[in-house]
Structure formats: structure tokens, C-alpha cells
């Protein structure tokens, strides 16, 4: 039946080989878990000449701590991420978001690297990772660089690069993730997702990050919310402040009235969770 048109398939054993292939091919596509890439291929008019699988490259696998960071190999599958002790212990919010990503077979196939590198904004993970301060290791034949995930997603995509690691700072950071779907079903694309993270100072919240993801655009930083809450004691934050801050931020987003309401509800819930903590 030939469901896909022809291309050349490669399965390099090392990152260097992969980079070389990437350089040589006319129109290459990198294949991680395949759930985005192959799906896109079926509909794409711009068809690749070469598909380069990253499956056999050992350097892209594993989860480990290094310095004060957690290193996650981009070929880590979502189900492996969920099962990882490191994630369960230090990044509960990431685990929860990963559990709601796609469906069971998708979680068994999709990788965290594919999830961020595909720049497919319907998924929750990039927003969660941004709120947790994730940085990416990216390599090309010219060498490597480390870039913040938010910057990576919003910069112009460089063709000949491979994401070779995801770095998460190991700090004492609190985080909440809220998610509303288009159909009230858990298994659905996010109508609105909100990840809220912060570190705790003596007096109150420090380094607050609120990141929103929707089916409309790349993750959006809620800068107003972050600045309103910065340094405030738990009990000093009023609902009105929050609402005002949310409304300020909304000017930078494409959120409709209903999504704004959901955002306000989530912020309200966060507030009561924070207050509960303070009490």
C-alpha cells in the first residue's frame, strides 16, 4: 500500500555520524520517537530526502545528575521520564504533565527531545520545562551551545542542529501544573495549561515563573504575574492583584475570554494552595 513516499533511512550509531548525515542530506528529518515526525510526513508537501533515526545513539539516552543540574537524554521516552526516580523525586509537576501527554502508546513512543525539538506547541511539556528553568544542549558540526528552552523555541530554527541534552536546575523550587482540555476529557489537547513555579524566600515567593501553553501559540511567560508576586509574603497576595496582573499579561497573548477565565481560576487555586502552605 506504500503509505509513505520514498526517502533514505539512516540509523547512525554516534552523534558525530548523525551530524555528518544531517550536513550531507538535501532535506533531512530527524527521527526520535516518530509520533510527530512520521505523522507530519504523511501530510507534508515538503517531503524529506533523508530520515535520520537517533534511536541507536547511546549518548542521547539516560537521566543523570551533574553539578547542580539534572541531565535528561533527549531520547528518553515519556514513559521512562514518568518512571524515573529523579523526576518523581524532584520534578513532580513534570511527571504529572508527562502523564497527561498524549495517550499510553504515544507516551511509550514519544521522547522528551522530540517533544521540545519538534516545536509542536500543543503539548504541555515545553511550558512546564520552561517554568522549571530548562536549558538545552544543542550540537552541530561547528560545536555545541547551551540555550534556554524558551529562547530556543522562539529563535529561528537552525536546520543542522541536534538537541543533545536537556538540563534542569536542581533547586528547591515549588511548582504547580494546571490543565484544561478542549473536551473535558483528560486525553485531549490542552485548551489551556498553566505551570507556576517559584522558590521560597524567608518572607515569601522569589523567582516566580508563570508559563501558559495553549493550542494557539508557543508557551507564553506571564511576566506581570511574576513581577506582582515577586518577593511578596504568602498572605500579602490578593486575588485582585492576581487578576490585574493576569489581565496585564493577557495583552501579550491571544487568549480569548474563556481562556482568561480559566487562567484566573487557576491563579485563584494557586493562591489558595500557597496560602494553605503558609498556614
Amino acid at each position, binding site marked *: 500500500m506504500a503509505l509513505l513516499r520514498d526517502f533514505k533511512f539512516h540509523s547512525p550509531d554516534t552523534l558525530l555520524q548523525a551530524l555528518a548525515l544531517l550536513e550531507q542530506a538535501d532535506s533531512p528529518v530527524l527521527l526520535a520517537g516518530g509520533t510527530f515526525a512520521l505523522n507530519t510526513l504523511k501530510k507534508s508537501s515538503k517531503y524529506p530526502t533523508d530520515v535520520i533515526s537517533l534511536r541507536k545513539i547511546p549518548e542521547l539516552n539516560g537521566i543523570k545528575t551533574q553539578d547542580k543540574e539534572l541531565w535528561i537524554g533527549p531520547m528518553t521516552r515519556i514513559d521512562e521520564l514518568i518512571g524515573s526516580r529523579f523526576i518523581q523525586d524532584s520534578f513532580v509537576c513534570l511527571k504529572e504533565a508527562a502523564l497527561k501527554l498524549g495517550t499510553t502508546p504515544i507516551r511509550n513512543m514519544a521522547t522528551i527531545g522530540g517533544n521540545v525539538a519538534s516545536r509542536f506547541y500543543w503539548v504541555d511539556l515545553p511550558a512546564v520545562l520552561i517554568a522549571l528553568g530548562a536549558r538545552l544542549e544543542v550540537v552541530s558540526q561547528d560545536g555545541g551551545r547551551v540555550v534556554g528552552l524558551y529562547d530556543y523555541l522562539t529563535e529561528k530554527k537552525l536546520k543542522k542542529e541536534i538537541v543533545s541534552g536537556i538540563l534542569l536546575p536542581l533547586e528547591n523550587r515549588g511548582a504547580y501544573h494546571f490543565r484544561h482540555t478542549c473536551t473535558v476529557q483528560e486525553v485531549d489537547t490542552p485548551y489551556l495549561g498553566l505551570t507556576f513555579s517559584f522558590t521560597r524566600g524567608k518572607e515569601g515567593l522569589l523567582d516566580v515563573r508563570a508559563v501558559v501553553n495553549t493550542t494557539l501559540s508557543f508557551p507564553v511567560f506571564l511576566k506581570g504575574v511574576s513581577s506582582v508576586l515577586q518577593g511578596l509574603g504568602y498572605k500579602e497576595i490578593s486575588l485582585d492583584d492576581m487578576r490585574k496582573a493576569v489581565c496585564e499579561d493577557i495583552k501579550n497573548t491571544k487568549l480569548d475570554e*474563556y481562556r482568561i*477565565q480559566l487562567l484566573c481560576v487557576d491563579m485563584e487555586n494557586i493562591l489558595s494552595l500557597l496560602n494553605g502552605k503558609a498556614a
Partner: protein
Amino acid sequence: MNKNKTLSPVGKSVPRIDAREKVSGEAKYVFDMTFPGMLVGKMLRSPHAHAKILKIDTSKALKLKGVKAVITAEDTLKIKFGSNEFFFPYTVDQYPLEFEKVRYIGDEIAAVAAVDEETAKEALSLIEVEYEILSAVFNTVDAMKPGAPQIHSSMNNIGVMLPVSFGNPDKALKESDYVREDIFYLQSAAHCALEPHVSLGQYEVSTNKITLWTSTQAPFKVREAMAKVLKMATADIRVIKLNVGGGFGGKLEMLPMDFAACLLSKKSGGLPVKITCSREEEFSFTRRKHPMVYKLKSGVKKDGTIMAITGEVIADGGAYCSYGPTVIAAAIMRIFMVYKIENIRLMGFRVYTNNSISGAIRGFGGVQSGFAIESHMDMLARGIGMDSMEFRLKNATDPNTVTVNKLIISSNGLKDCIKKVGEACGWKEKNGKDKTDGDIVCGIGMGIAADVMGSKMYKSHESAGSIIKVEEDGSVYLFTGAADTGQGSDTALAQIAAQELGVAYERIRVKAADTETTPFDTGSFASRVTFISGNATKNAATDAKKQILEIVALELKCDSNDFDIHDECVVKKADNSKIMDFDKAIQLCYSFDYGRLIIGRGNYNPKTTPIDFRTGQGNVSGSYSFEAQVAEVEVNKKTGEVRVTKMYDVHDIGYPVNPASVHGQIEGSIVMGIGYTLYEDLKFDQGRVVNPSFSKYRLPRSIGIPKIESIFIETNDPQGPFGAKGMGESSLLPTAAAIANAVYDAVGVQIKDLPITPEKVLKALKEKEDRG
């Protein structure tokens, strides 16, 4: 053969006859079929919503290497087909391949057959079509305006107009204590059978015969349409159904692809041609649910008596009529089965637009009318301060009655259903009580419904036939034209055959739905198979049994009336004493008088009367089934999210031939209903379906499905085989209203516009707050 012996299988949840092959992966669908030399067929569809076809040039496509045939209307006899020809000849409006005009995005104008998918696709792109674009209409309001683009020749694009009219509703409205008017909006939806439409056609050159394997609910209907458009004898067209991966009304008629597969095979010298719909084609170009606007104005007395119901229904029919008349009739006539009404005037309009074709889908307009009427009834009850369950009990139809439109209702457990569902859910304790937990508010709501089993709306008859063939060793074949599409009808028919013949269920082999080898049957629709094909099968088994007993009686020189067959034995009726084994009796038959073969035949045509479509009078079905449903919901006041937490369904199914199957139908219907109520929505933009995939058109998944408690009321219908009634669709009918009414019970807003999205709930709550 299975070692188990299930004697007297009717009423038992025996495993489905096809379950073993389905769990093993061996079950064959047309989807799986291949033949040596088989070609891939593809349809060329219009990219325009409305356009004149000026010229079609297929020469380039024909020259492409690997292309074996290209067909356009010029290769056809240009004969129109339609699904309601007998009573509504003017709705026969579609050519297998269009040549004058295209009327929706997807309209079929040509087809190709090639050696592989890739070549077939390329060939499509090489067919050159010149169009003259015409202005198009995409909603019923615009379509009915004077001067609107004319899609067919009907005035104001109204393709079907049907009334029901009895009594004096205007006078009765004046005499009412409370009158209210509501408008309900119902969206379109897709069937989403997991097996797509597949047609595999093969033409036999030497005999000029056609064989079509197709994923269908109604092989005999497909054959009839094929015979018409090809001007062939039905005996020269063999339509075969294998396992079908779901139908839900979407596989009830011949589609142009069925026709094209056969004609392409003829054109390519008899090579088999297979056409498989992609998921996108399934969503965009097959059939869909009629979107409707349902207006109601009704009056009641203070004591709850319904005085009058008036209103109109306007349905977006899309480009062609399909099953339009029946859907409209069902949308305005189902109410008579449910409520005692003397004064009524409803008008149903089905309007042509340049959207895709609206057709049959589980519930046949009843889902739409069920939502409108059952929501409206709740609001009427509320208006007079009456409990909606009491209101329904007061107005529900009774057993052994003839309704104002001459429906003959014999067994009727509707009131028992209402009472029982009320008890099961704790209606008295829960309804109208405040149940708030933070932002979450619980609510409970009811809906009731009734359904036909078969429908006197397609033909002069509703006959079905069965043949029982008993082999020398006592093996039993049942030949039936009925089409099991997964609902389990083959199993139910085997149970009925075994029960009547007095043998174990495991003896029966079902050979079904092959127009050449099985008796006629109109197909799987209108919840008719258990009732109509079931009766035919029972009659065939009775006939076979009679033949056996006559020979046994001759041999023993007794009266055959003194004997019966039970538990695989011929017994004496008087004392149930065993005369001989079934196998022994069959051996006797085969050797008696140098051989008597046992072939039982059965036929059944329900006692119905044709409908007078000027008033809505006539007994459409041989019997009627009834039910009451309750939904429990949780509404989040802050986000507007509605979750269905529990469903109760009490159903008068007559008698359950296979209780597990019946529960399965009810559960499946309810979950489908929940999807339609809360999120399923086939959306269009300028005639193009904008969400033609499972990622954009969301179906209910396994998470968060509420517990469903389903209870039977057994009324043992005198017409039904072993008292059974049909019930494949009715559980879908009251679900939407039950949920909407539960939302009202929770938060005090009645959503009249499906689907009930969180946004709509929130907006309604805000409006309610603003009103104070």
C-alpha cells in the same frame, strides 16, 4: 466445535458467535481483502462547494503508466439514485458520478483504478476539470432566502417538507395555563466507525456479473441501488458483507465508491478494484448527522396535562437527500410514541445547502428531537412547579392504546421505566436539592424515549427471510439476510434459531448477508433486526422443526402435534418424555422414504400500515420499545466544565435475547450520546469540514466514562420473537436532554445549544448572574 452446550439459549448471555475469531485477529473485514492483480481505486472529488462542470478531460490520466481505468459520468447510464425512492421519488437526486454540477466539496465526478496507491493518486491529479464556480450557501437561513443559489430544482432549496397535524393546537394553546416557546440548536456529528468505508468490486466478463464486497449495514439496499443505476437484474449483482467494523447508520446506502469499484473493474477487464476511504474522506465526504434548529411552542394545564405542541424543525440536509425524508419524519413523529398528545402541529423542513450530505445516523433524527423535546418538557414542568418525573408519568403513553396518529402500541413499559429509574437513582432525594461542594455542584436530570423496530418508510413491505438447513449429522446452518455490523445480531438470531429448534446454541452456524445465497432482508437500521429478522428466523426454525417432527410421527405412527423438540431431544409434549435424540431424528429424516432433507423457511413482515405523509398518520412499526434515563453530573461553577458521573437507563426491551449484548448496546449508545452532548461537533467552514481527524474531532475515550446502570423492564411483547423488542438506537435518544436537565438541576441554567461546552455553561451562568 465448542464443547459447551448451551440449551435454551434465549435469555442467556452466551458468547457472541463471532467473538472468538475477533479476539484472535482472524476475523476478516472487507478492509483486509486482497486478490491477485487487485487494483487500487480512488475517487476524484470536487474541490468546490458549488460549480458547473464545463469539461472533464481524462486523457492524461489514462496515459499514465499503471493506470488501468478512468471513469466519468460518460461511462455511466446517468441514472439517479436515492434512499427514499418508494415514498419520496422526488428525493432521488444523486448521480453515481456527477456531470452537470457539483454541489459540495467532495462531490464525486470521476474515479480511477491503478496498480498502486501512488499511481492512483497521481492519476487523479492528471484529470483536468473545468468548472464555472457558482455562488454557494452554507446555512439553512441563507439557503431559504429568495434569490439564494439554487442547488437542485426545489423551491427555496427545501428538499423535504413534512407535517404532522392533529387536533386543534391553536385552541388548545389558548386553553393552556402555561405556554412557553424554546429554540434548540443541534450540531452535526460523524459516525466514526473504526473500519472506514471499503468497496471491492469485481466484474466477471464472461457472465456480465458483478460481485461487490462492501462494508455495509444493508447489502440488499446496496444491491437495489446498484441494479437501478446499472440497469441490471439484481440476480447479476452479488453484494457480500463480511465482518463490518461498525456502521451506526453511516453504511446504510450505496455510495458512489461502491458503484465506482464495480464499474472500474468492468473497465479494466475484470480486475478486482478496491476503494478504501481515508479517515479524512470518512469525516468529510461520506454521511453525517443533520444539524437542526428545533423550535417548540407548547402549552400545559396546571395539573400537568400537555394541551398542545407546535413547532418547526429546520435541518441542514447538505447537497443531496440521502435518508432525509425518514430523518425528518422521525424527528417530528417520535413524540407520539412517548407522550399522549391530542393537539399537535409540527412542520419539518430539510433544506439543501452546499455542505456535505446529511444522512442516517444512529437515532435517525431522534437524538435531535429527543434533546429538544425532553429539554422542553422539563421546562414546561418547571413552569407549573411540577416535578419533571411526575410530569412525564402523567403524560407518558400507556400499553394497548392507539395514538392520535394511529400508532398501535401493544406492550408498553414506559411508565414502569420512569418509576424504576426514579427508584434506582434516588430521584426524590436528589432532584432539586442543593448539592454544592466548593466550586463543584452536582445535578440530576431525566429524559425518556421510545423507538420503533423497523420502519414502514422505505418500501411497500418490511419483509425479512431466513432459512434453516439441517445437515445429515445434525449440524445446523442459519441463512439470513440480516447484516451484523458488530451489534451482535448474528448471535441473537442463532440463539433464536437454537431455542425454537430445540437444539444447543453451539450447533448453529450463521451464514449472513450475501445477496446471492441468503434470503432478502432490508438491513440493519431502525433497530429492526432482532424483531423482524428474529421473527423470520423463529418461523424458519418452526418450519424445520415441523418437518422433523412429521417424519418422526410418520415413523412412530403418531400425530406430529404430540411432539416437540427440547434440549436436543424429540419429546412427547404431554409428559416431556424423551422419544429420541435430535441427531437420531435427523438420521431418520435423511433415511426416511429414501431421504428427506430438512430445510426450514421463514418470513416475517410486521403488521404495519403505510404512513400518510400529509398528516403523519399510520402505524410505522410492528411494536415499540421504551425507556427512561437519568444523568448525574458535576458542574464546575468557575470553569463551566460538565462531567457526567453516573447514568441510569431503564429499558423496556420486551425480553432480552442476550442480556450482555443488550447491556452492550445500551452502554455504547449512552457513551456515544455523552460525546455528542458534550463535545462531538463536525464543524464546517465554507462547506469544508475543518476537523476531519480523530485529533480534532474528539470521541469519548476510556478515561472518565461514567458508571452506567442499565435495568430491563420485561414486557414480553406478543409480536416479538420470544417477547423481544429491538433496541439498538433508543438509548442514545434521551441522553443529551438528561444531561442538559441535570446541568439545570445543578446550576440553574438550561443549555439549549449542543454541545454543552464549558464556555456555553459559563456564559449562561454569567447571564444568569447579570439578570440577578
